[in-house]
């Protein structure tokens, strides 16, 4: 066990020395990995942020039911009674005054709302049906529209559904891109390690002659691959941070123009850890494949 620990320590030290001996080439390799990875990681973050935005919107289909201005108390009571039936999951009443107040504060239209001679908005119900199939929604929508005292009904969810579908498609695209970039990452790492193995050909051959096992020879290169991958992950995080910094103000300005307080969210600590783990593991894998193949070639040519 102690011998094993000595081997690990020496291999790690050797890997770090190799990196420090060639700082420029190590930096360029890490940057190549970081830039390559920042694309899928950036797309993931964009989708994550859009997902948050979509999460604030009604993801489930809702029907808005607007009452006529002259609807009687009996008609209002009939509608309220209908909305208590089991096919309705939830129904929320929004009084016209409440709607105007919300319009004034949330959309920044306080002055306009205050200048209105009377409140033009109707009383409304926001209804969430239990059965969300297209036919059931249409049936309920038509039924509510025919009730006396109802001026208008609107099925609100269609565009939100489309946005969710687009986000789901985007997420699938991100995973596909991630798989492709994982291969690219392993290739970058493998190529860098191959050069290192060839540069240390004599040392490897001498070590083999005096009793070095495959694992002993391979270990420093695997550590080198893993450390390079970790540095690549750090470079990707730095690229994302920089992009976030540049985009933050324009995005916030755009959101404000749409009356939203939505802000760009940076990657969370678990997401960053996942990024570092991903780059480390795939770089290690690339190093493993490369060192195994190159060692065979080096030894065959000895």
């Amino acid at each position, binding site marked *: 066990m102690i*011998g094993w620990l*000595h081997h690990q320590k020496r291999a790690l030290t050797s890997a770090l020395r190799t990196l420090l001996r060639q700082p420029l080439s190590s930096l360029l390799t890490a940057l190549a990995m970081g830039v390559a990875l920042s694309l899928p990681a950036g797309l993931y973050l964009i989708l994550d942020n859009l997902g948050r935005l979509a999460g604030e919107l009604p993801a489930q289909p809702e029907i808005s039911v607007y009452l006529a201005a002259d609807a009687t108390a009996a008609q209002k009571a009939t509608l309220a009674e209908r909305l208590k039936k089991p096919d309705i999951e939830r129904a929320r009443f929004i009084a016209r005054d409440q709607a105007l107040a919300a319009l004034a504060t949330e959309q920044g239209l306080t002055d306009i709302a205050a200048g209105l001679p009377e409140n033009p908005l109707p009383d409304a119900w926001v209804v969430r049906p239990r059965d969300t199939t297209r036919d059931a929604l249409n049936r309920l929508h038509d039924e509510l529209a025919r009730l006396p005292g109802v001026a208008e009904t609107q099925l609100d969810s269609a565009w939100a559904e489309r946005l969710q579908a687009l986000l789901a498609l985007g997420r699938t695209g991100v995973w596909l891109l991630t798989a492709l970039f994982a291969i690219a990452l392993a290739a970058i790492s493998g190529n860098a390690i191959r050069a290192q193995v060839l540069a240390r050909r*004599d040392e490897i051959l*001498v070590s*083999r*002659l*005096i009793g*070095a*096992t495959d694992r*002993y020879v391979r270990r420093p290169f695997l550590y080198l691959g893993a450390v390079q991958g970790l540095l690549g992950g750090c470079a990707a995080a730095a690229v994302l941070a920089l992009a976030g910094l540049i985009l933050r103000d324009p995005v916030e300005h755009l959101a404000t123009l749409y009356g939203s307080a939505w802000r760009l969210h940076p990657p969370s600590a678990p997401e960053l850890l996942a990024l570092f783990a991903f780059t480390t593991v795939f770089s290690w894998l690339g190093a493993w494949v490369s060192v195994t193949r190159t060692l065979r070639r080096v030894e065959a040519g000895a």
Partner: protein
Amino acid sequence: MISFSQVTKRYPGGHEALSGIDITIAQGELVFLTGHSGAGKSTFLKLIAAIERPTRGVVAVSGQNVGRLSRRAVPYLRRNIGLVFQDHKLLFDRSAIENVVLPLDIAGVERRESLKRARAVLDKVGLLAREKANPVSLSGGEQQRLCIARALVARPALLLADEPTGNLDAGYAADIMSMFRDFHQVGTTLVIATHDERAIAALGGRILHFDHGRVAEGSA
């Protein structure tokens, strides 16, 4: 300790380096391999260290059939064998002492202990004062002594040397042979391929004369 039983080694291309060799070397023996270049001396050493595999026959070291050893088992065999090469095979990107500690690093010996043992063996070969020197700055004789120090630092029971004095002048060659005599006296088995007849005469021991892949016995 070492036995060759009906061993033939044919290289790709058809050259037969050894033909049906039967040899036994006991523990603690001092054996010289002589013969012209290409007679099979180096192949004989390579078969013992499992650097080459026999085409036919059995090569056994300490009871192990080395021709049948798995790739994984070969390094453990080599850790018990000290190898001295004519071209030294030193690493020029590290100091003399770093070259010597390499076998101990490979064996997983703790660093402080490795350095202690490396200094002891460097002292034995007269290079302690040059421990920090790069091998490039050492003379041919010093490089060969450094190679011997690396071969001995793990205290192997068997030392194989391929033309250890081949490129050295008479003075250095005598020093190195005298070093080998010291190691033999403490029980190390030595198998030395050499053309140096003066050294053979000075040290005594068993002679295996190689000629076109066949062996004849003799003594100094």
